[in-house]
């Protein structure tokens, strides 16, 4: 069974494949590095301001953070199912799964907008203290990624519906899929750092 799912690579064979194009992976690694810098800023600010960072998450809306995490994970799941559907030559199902991901992306943005409004009503703004400064900087950066990522999925749906992507040729779909998963990875890191760990 293992021999079927993970065949050994013969000596001298070409390296294993890259999901999507090399260009999108350059972009993904650059974006992951950008988020890594933000996380390092968070860690440094945390050790220098332990009391502020211990109290900060308590005032945030954990429910909004949790729901958005569930939404992001579900959107990634929908994207994977969309890719599988196209590989099975079912572009209609692929399109439906991808629309599910777009709805998730839109829902994330709406919830985040109301979370920001709720924060403001509680007096939690960028100037309140360094924790909220870091919180707004990281989460708004991620907010923008979800926005343009959702728009990119809509573009991919158009190309699926017009038959540009097929069972055998859909590198553009894979590019947006792995990029969207990167946005998901960033959020699953942000969620414990800002909402859970004190």
């Amino acid at each position: 069974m293992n021999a079927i799912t993970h065949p050994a690579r013969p000596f001298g064979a070409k390296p294993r494949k890259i999901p999507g194009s090399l260009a999108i992976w350059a972009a993904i690694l650059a974006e992951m590095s950008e988020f890594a810098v933000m996380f390092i800023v968070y860690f440094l600010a945390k050790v220098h301001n332990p009391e502020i960072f211990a109290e900060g998450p308590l005032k945030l809306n954990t429910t909004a953070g949790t729901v958005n995490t569930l939404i992001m994970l579900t959107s990634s799941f929908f994207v994977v199912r969309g890719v599988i559907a196209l590989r099975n030559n079912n572009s209609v199902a692929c399109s439906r799964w991808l629309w599910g991901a777009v709805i998730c992306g839109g829902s994330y943005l709406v919830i985040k907008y109301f979370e920001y409004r709720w924060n403001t009503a509680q007096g939690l703004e960028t100037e309140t203290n360094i924790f909220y400064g870091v919180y707004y900087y990281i989460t708004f950066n991620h907010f923008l990624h979800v926005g343009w990522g959702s728009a990119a999925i809509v573009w991919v749906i158009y190309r699926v519906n017009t038959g540009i992507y097929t069972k055998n040729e859909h590198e553009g779909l894979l590019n947006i899929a792995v990029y969207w998963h990167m946005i998901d990875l960033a959020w699953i890191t942000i969620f414990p750092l800002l909402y859970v760990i004190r």
Partner: protein
Amino acid sequence: MKISINKKMTHIQLINTFWVILISLTLFSAYMAEQAKPGLTSILIMSLVLAIKGRIIVDHFMELKDAHVVLRTLMRVYFYVIPTLIILVYLFPEQIVKWTVL
């Protein structure tokens, strides 16, 4: 053909299972955020949860498990380093402050 269909079903079932695991881990994290007292145990659990979630998405959603070794390693290492930093920041905050004062 029969083998091919079975393999497809297995892949979809695997992805469905990973989604359920990811959702369960997130709900567990939220429960920890509301109920657990801050401490080393909760930090270790949170770090482990993050590492597991990251690994599932990298390996199975991004499909890097059988992809190019450099890409796979870079993405996997990210989710070893961040959870480790969370633990180190909790265990040695004063030492890190000493190293990072200008």
